[in-house]
């Protein structure tokens, strides 16, 4: 008891001293010395436990239990991971994935569908051969499947579980996890195929800046020049490649926990995987919109491979001229396409085909 009383007295005097002298002291004068630590012998274990909590360098630790990270007594990043996951990520991801479709819907209401000026010509030219469409839809279906299963694991607890109950949701979530893990490793292959097929055609060109500057002709009706791929498509393509690599690498770290990767690396991988995929999905909404209802005549290029000439002239005029001229220019057209068009006259097919 007396210790605390003496201590209280000391503290009071100290406070009094600050109030009386401290205010009177000129600026820059020596502050009064801090009170001496009243603990003569501090807890000898305190340094050790500070180290265990990794507030200071962790001392060497061992355990006889085999496994990765088993010798680590306290996983201090766990709470950070939990805070991030529950407080920051789920909410932000939810808002993004709801906000982007709402924004697209608003855009659709205001701008409406981008029509082909002057209507269709009735003549079609080939845009995406079978192989191109195959790898596109392979990637697209894989992407949608992985997105749905991944989002089930991310939001299911808050959205699906309250609707169906824990038992039914467990079946859904378990199937999602197994499906996600089974088909996920195919995604790097899809990204690789896309890269090999379309990387050259997506190299940036000077006219892409002009295209971007004019907003791609999406707003207003200004005419914008573009080759086989316009700047918007190129940005999407390189986003797919970069995000695809990030998502694939982080996903592979998570799906095969057998290479001795530690808990911290897997935490980081999950954080990166989550953010990258949510951004990826948000991006894909824009791609899906502009490829389907957003722009008249776009979808048929990926559906059956042929687009209307008027559509090509509007959106990809340089490519259209190349096809008409029957020769490849600046790698904008794959080498086999001109030959193909020379066989059956310069890129013209019957309307019935479309």
């Amino acid at each position: 008891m007396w210790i605390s009383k003496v201590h209280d007295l000391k503290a009071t005097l100290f406070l009094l001293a600050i109030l009386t002298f401290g205010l009177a002291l000129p600026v820059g004068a020596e502050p009064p010395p801090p009170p001496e630590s009243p603990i003569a012998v501090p807890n000898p274990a305190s340094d050790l436990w500070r180290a265990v909590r990794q507030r200071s360098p962790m001392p060497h630790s061992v355990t006889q239990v085999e496994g990765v990270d088993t010798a680590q007594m306290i996983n201090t990043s766990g709470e950070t991971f939990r805070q991030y996951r529950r407080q920051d990520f789920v909410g932000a991801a939810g808002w993004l994935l709801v906000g982007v479709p709402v924004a697209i819907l608003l855009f659709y209401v205001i701008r409406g569908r981008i029509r082909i000026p002057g209507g269709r010509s009735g003549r079609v030219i080939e845009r995406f051969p079978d192989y191109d469409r195959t790898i596109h839809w392979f990637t697209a279906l894989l992407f949608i499947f992985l997105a749905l299963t991944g989002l089930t694991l991310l939001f299911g607890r808050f959205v699906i579980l309250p609707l169906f109950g824990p038992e039914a949701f467990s079946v859904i979530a378990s199937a999602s996890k197994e499906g996600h893990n089974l088909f996920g490793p195919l995604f790097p292959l899809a990204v690789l195929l896309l890269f090999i097929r379309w990387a050259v055609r997506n190299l940036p060109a000077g006219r892409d800046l002009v295209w971007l500057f004019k907003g791609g002709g999406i707003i207003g009706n200004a005419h914008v020049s573009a080759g086989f791929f316009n700047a918007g498509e190129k940005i999407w393509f390189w986003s797919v490649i970069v995000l695809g690599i990030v998502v694939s690498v982080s996903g592979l770290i998570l799906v095969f926990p057998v290479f001795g990767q530690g808990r911290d690396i897997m935490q980081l991988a999950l954080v990166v995987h989550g953010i990258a995929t949510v951004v990826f999905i948000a991006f894909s909404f824009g791609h899906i919109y502009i490829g389907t209802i957003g722009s008249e005549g776009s979808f048929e290029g990926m559906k059956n491979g042929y687009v209307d000439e008027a559509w090509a002239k509007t959106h990809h005029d340089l490519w259209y001229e190349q096809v008409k001229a029957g020769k490849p220019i600046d790698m904008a057209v794959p080498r086999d396409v001109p030959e193909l068009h020379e066989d059956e006259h310069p890129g013209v097919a019957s309307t019935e085909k479309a």
Partner: protein
Amino acid sequence: MANMKFYCDAERCIECNACVTACKNENEVPWGVNRRRVVTIKDGEPGERSLSVACMHCADAPCAAVCPVDCFYTTEDGVVLHDKDICIGCGYCFYACPFGAPQFPKAGAFASRGKMDKCTFCAGGPKETGSADEHRMYGSNRLAEGKLPLCAEMCSTKALLAGDANVISDIYRKRVINRGASVLDWGVNYDKASLRAPRTTSGKATGEG
């Protein structure tokens, strides 16, 4: 209702690993799963200490917070358990747990994670108490038999304590008093005296210490 806690006294733990072995035997956990482990810091150096670590049955458990299928629940005794019929083996609880408690048997192809397994405070699981299913999936339910977790029950130095938080902290408090007041300056660190020795205590605490 009790509020069950583990406490491991680092001044007493001798790193014998008997708690680990007892746990494996009592709960018949799968190969490669260790619900409890002993970690030794500064091994062979001055100030070496060992602690037996397992699920600490957090009041606000991070594993339960990050679980995508919400399979964790806390019993009336304050024991954090999970339902293996609901667990999908994603591993998020392992990332969030401060103690590395969640374990995963290598179940599927490429050693993918099976359903999570962790210390149950020898309190079984959501299956019918005492049933064969409960024992197969979750191990012993000693709590239902009026016993405490085996790891703590058989600890030779009584370093590992298990039981109601109030009882555990009483025991530990007495030990600390016995070890000498100079270790912790009560008047300074615990001004509210909640942990101060009883008035009758002078020097040595009565009872076990």
